[in-house]
């Protein structure tokens, strides 16, 4: 009896439940279709268009270009506060790293030296420390001094200066001058690094020389002059390619002091001798020279797109 009632009860409930399920299912079907269609429309067909964006919304390309413009403007007007405000508009927490990476990219893509110098000055102001900054923005004074004021502010429009950049003043020639003004000779290479060469358990008596171009790539075929009290020797880099295209070395004799310089012009590094390392073994020296001219002689006036 109970069973029959129960069955009867079940059969009476079933249609109502299936009706509820189908109603909810139909509504849900419509809901999902509507949701999908609306999201497609809102995200793809007619997305929100930002017209009041800040530079933080820029693509990577435009961010790089923006930083370039900031560096050039800063080089022109020397207004760090303004340059900093502009950089802050990028909203980049890793701004210094971004500028550093862009500087490295400039070096590798052989951008004009002025572009690199200006960006290096900006990087230096942001606290970036690295070989590129040290090379192209060697001291903070260069960045903090007013870099070539373009024009001075004037009280009235009629007395304004045009925006002609004032370059470094030309040397004036005096009537009595009989000697041609000679440019200050600049070495073609700078000493980038001087390090000890120590190999634990092995005596090293070499002077290793590494020559690099301005972009820090190995530079072969550079003549190296080694002098000591009673003699002189010369060799070229690049004859041991397994150690680097710009590598060359010289074997020192014990108790002799040597000096090394590059035939193309570099500082002379003296007082090089075999000296014991911390491990007790004899050690040599490794000198890295960087060419300062290559990049300056390849002006590629390529601008960023």
């Amino acid at each position, binding site marked *: 009896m109970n069973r029959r009632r129960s069955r009867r009860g079940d059969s009476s409930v079933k249609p109502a439940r299936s009706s509820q399920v189908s109603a909810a299912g139909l*509504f849900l079907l419509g809901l*999902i279709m509507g949701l999908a269609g609306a999201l497609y429309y809102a995200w793809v067909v007619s*997305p*929100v268009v930002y017209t009041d964006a800040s530079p933080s*919304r820029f693509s990577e390309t435009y961010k790089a270009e923006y930083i370039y*413009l900031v560096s050039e403007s800063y080089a022109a007007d020397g207004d760090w506060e303004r340059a900093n405000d502009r950089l802050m508009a990028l909203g980049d927490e890793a701004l210094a790293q971004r500028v550093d990476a862009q500087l490295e990219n400039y070096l590798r893509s052989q951008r004009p030296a002025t572009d690199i110098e200006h960006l290096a000055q900006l990087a230096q102001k942001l606290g970036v420390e690295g070989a590129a900054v040290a090379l192209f923005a060697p001291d903070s004074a260069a960045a903090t001094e007013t870099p070539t004021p*373009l024009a001075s502010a004037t*009280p009235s429009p009629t007395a304004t*200066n045009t925006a002609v950049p004032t370059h470094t003043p030309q040397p004036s020639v005096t009537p009595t001058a009989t000697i041609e003004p000679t440019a200050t000779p600049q070495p073609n290479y700078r000493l980038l690094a001087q390090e000890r060469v120590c190999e634990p358990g092995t005596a090293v008596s070499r002077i290793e020389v590494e020559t690099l171009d301005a972009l820090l790539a190995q530079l072969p075929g550079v003549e190296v002059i080694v002098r000591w009290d009673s003699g002189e020797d010369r060799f070229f880099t690049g004859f041991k390619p397994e150690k680097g295209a710009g590598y060359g070395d010289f074997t020192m004799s014990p108790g002799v002091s040597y000096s090394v310089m590059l035939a193309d012009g570099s500082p002379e590094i003296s007082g090089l001798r075999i000296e014991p390392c911390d491990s007790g073994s004899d050690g040599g020296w490794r000198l890295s020279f960087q060419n300062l001219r290559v990049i300056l002689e390849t002006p590629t006036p390529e601008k960023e797109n």
Partner: protein
Amino acid sequence: MRQWLRIIGLISLGLIVGGLLGLYLGWIAWPTEFTDANPSVLAEPYQQDYLLMIATVYAADGDLQAAQQYLAKLGDRGPSILNAYVLDEILLGKQGPDVQHLARLAHDLGFDSPALQPYLTPPTETVP
């Protein structure tokens, strides 16, 4: 017939609710994130600052072609934005190198206005 009306009604109701919900989510709650914007979508103050940088760089290097390329990134309205900006600055009585740079760039790009002339005058040399 009544059954069909019921089905269509439920689906339509779902569509309407889902559509409204989708538009809210797509336009307001989770709008498309623009991370690849270009200078043309910058807010006006940023566009003006962008123009000022172009003008400053142009004053320094004199490369009009490069300046035009940068200006083109502001879209078709780039030149008109520049012209309006420089005139606004002049009418506001702004002085100094910024206005001069803007005026010089606008002038060299072909914008001819008497208002620019005072800012284009070369510096008068003082004769002792």
